[in-house]
């Protein structure tokens, strides 16, 4: 059966020593980043993109993916032990997880979080392996008009699900698209201002590092210093009691289901699934008054959900080339650096990439369970490093990362510029992921638009005449409508959508 042979070949890629090592590195860095507030997976992935240039794309992607789900795990560690959600997806875990820590039950909480995550990750991986190929097959029927509509859907979903005002997010997307037009892409110079460097267009990596990495540093330094409350609770025994198990496994199952389903949604499925999972657990529990006081279901559910969602959020990106959010957008950019255009063709042209990544995600989950639990002590120590040293390190990594990518001083300057611009955007309440995505997807959209117009002889109705394209456009419009409904809007604004 195709499915089995795919999985097997995937594992053969994932288990080769280099990729194993990189998955480990990714998980460790991810956990570290997840534990430390003030630096998130988007920033880290953007910073490490230049490193992946030296690796083959599969290996690079494996490492970056490791960072992504490692961060989810690290976030929950900080949430349980310190009541600080290292990531937005860990917010729900703080509630009951930290209570458990205070009751000297941090060990079981951490263990259940890790085990639940592993289970959820396994199921989600299986899910991906099962559903991705048919989805990609659909994608193969795509021509230029369908691609255009698809890319539009991707761009719009990040705009719509952005926090804050939609017109501003839309404007940011347009700015991104405009930035994407710079250069010689279409055969004539556009907006190059006689600069040789600009003829190649505006590089996506310097912009990513600038608007996500540098602006984050600036923002952290301007905001008042946080008070770090370090709870030196002893972890105690790691093993959960039988009662814990009994309560947790249904929660894990439910969380997995919720996360797997919601993670596929473009634009922030991870956080939403943790909120949903927590709400469900509370509703379903026989004695819901336990919640908020250390109910282990309140850890098991959300943790499983967030891991499942993190895995399934790769599906739209890997099968159709639509980014679910900022993290996926950066990864898409990363793939494009290697000359791989994400989309349905990736599965056919680079099956090693696709299946290798999927297998590696499972391996990574296992590593997180086995290796991270013992390392928790170290992570806690690292939390004590004051930010005033940390940011300097990040600054140097950013500089080196940008420079070494293309040996370009110009790009370093661009990163500096976009750092300031990024911060200005943050202050003015302008969302950055749409800008990023506009820059990445813009050239593709233009090319497909041109082709579509040539095919149709200049008639824009081709986008609605062809059924798949029409369907995609309808979904785009539907997203707009649904999220503009007042009640949905308020809920969306209340939920702190994560950057993923």
């Amino acid at each position, binding site marked *: 059966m195709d499915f089995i042979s795919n999985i097997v070949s995937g594992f053969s890629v994932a288990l080769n020593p280099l990729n194993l090592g990189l998955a480990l590195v990714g998980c460790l860095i991810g956990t570290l980043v997840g534990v430390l507030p003030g630096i998130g997976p988007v920033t880290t992935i953007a910073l490490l993109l230049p*490193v992946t240039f*030296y690796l083959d794309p599969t290996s690079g992607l494996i490492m970056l993916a490791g960072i992504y789900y490692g961060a989810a795990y690290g976030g929950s560690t900080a949430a349980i032990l310190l009541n600080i959600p290292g990531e937005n997806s860990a917010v729900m875990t703080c509630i009951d997880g930290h209570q458990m820590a205070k009751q000297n039950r941090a060990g079981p909480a951490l263990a259940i979080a890790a085990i639940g995550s592993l289970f959820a990750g396994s199921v989600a991986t299986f899910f991906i392996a099962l559903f991705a190929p048919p989805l990609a097959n659909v994608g193969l029927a795509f021509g230029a008009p369908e691609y255009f509509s698809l890319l539009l859907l991707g761009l719009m979903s990040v705009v719509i699900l952005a*926090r*804050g*005002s939609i*017109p*501003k997010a839309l*404007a940011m997307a*347009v*700015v991104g*698209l*405009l930035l994407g*037009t710079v250069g010689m892409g279409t*055969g*004539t110079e*556009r*907006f190059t201002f006689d600069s040789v460097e600009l003829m190649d267009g505006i590089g996506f990596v310097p912009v990513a590092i600038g608007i996500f990495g*540098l602006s984050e*540093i*600036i*923002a952290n*330094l*301007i*905001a008042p*210093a946080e008070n770090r409350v370090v709870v030196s609770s002893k972890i105690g025994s790691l093993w959960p009691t039988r009662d814990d198990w009994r309560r947790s496994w249904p929660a894990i199952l439910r969380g997995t289901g919720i996360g797997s389903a919601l993670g596929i949604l473009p634009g922030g499925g991870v956080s939403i699934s943790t909120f949903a999972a927590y709400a469900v657990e509370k509703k379903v529990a026989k004695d819901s008054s336990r919640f908020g006081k250390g109910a282990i279901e309140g850890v098991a559910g959300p943790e499983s959900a967030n891991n499942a969602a993190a895995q399934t959020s790769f599906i739209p990106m890997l099968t159709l080339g639509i980014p679910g959010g900022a993290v996926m957008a950066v990864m898409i950019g990363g793939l494009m650096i290697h000359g791989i255009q994400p989309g349905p063709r990736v599965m056919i042209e680079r099956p090693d990439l696709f299946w290798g990544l999927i297998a590696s995600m499972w391996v990574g989950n296992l590593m997180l369970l086995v290796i991270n639990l013992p390392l928790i002590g170290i992570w806690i120590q690292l939390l004590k490093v*004051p*930010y*005033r*040293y940390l*940011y*300097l*390190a990040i*600054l*140097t*990594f950013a*500089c*080196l990362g940008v*420079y*070494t990518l293309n040996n370009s*001083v*110009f*790009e*370093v*300057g661009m990163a*500096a*510029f976009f*750092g*300031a611009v990024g*911060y200005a955007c943050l*202050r*003015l*309440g302008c969302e950055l992921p749409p800008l990023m995505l506009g820059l990445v997807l813009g050239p593709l959209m*233009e090319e497909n*638009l*041109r082709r579509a*117009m*040539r095919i149709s002889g*200049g008639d*824009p109705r081709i986008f609605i005449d062809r059924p798949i394209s029409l369907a995609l456009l309808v979904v785009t419009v539907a997203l707009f409508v649904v999220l503009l409904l007042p009640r949905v809007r308020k809920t969306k*604004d209340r939920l702190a959508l994560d950057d993923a």
Partner: protein
Amino acid sequence: MTVNTLDQGALGQSSDAGRAKTFHWRTLASNDVICGIAFIALALFGLWESHDYPMGTALAMGPGYLPRLLCLVLLALGVIIIIADLRSDPSAQPSESVLAEYKVPLTWSSLVPVVAVSLSVFTFGQLIERSGFVLAMLATVLIGGFASRESRPLSVILTAVILTLFNWVVFVVALGVPLRPW
């Protein structure tokens, strides 16, 4: 930038009598208005710069087609944003409350991190090819040190040295990136 200071609550103690006047300032200086103006300015600049790019037709799009179209959309959005903001209730809780962590009062001194970080990265670029890795790294960290209120000179210098060594080992020795030390 000073205009923003008014916006960020530095006038929290304004009396009721002064409120009528500050109302106008607030309206003109709100985040959304500034955004809108910036977008409009960018769009106009784009239109001006691309004024002689051939447009072509829908069938055979010229280089100017998409950029100019985008600029027009941006222009429209900028106007919409400004109008929407002027019409909304200034005392209403902005839906950007989730971005509250960035709403620290903006003063001249809060520009320091922006300048320091940008300058630090820029300096790195300028020095790395002219003066080599060591000098570039040290300068980057030293300038970057100005960005934090909490840094002490001695620890910044020490961090600079440590990071220079560390990065040399990681990037040049381990990853094999070709960089000249000086």
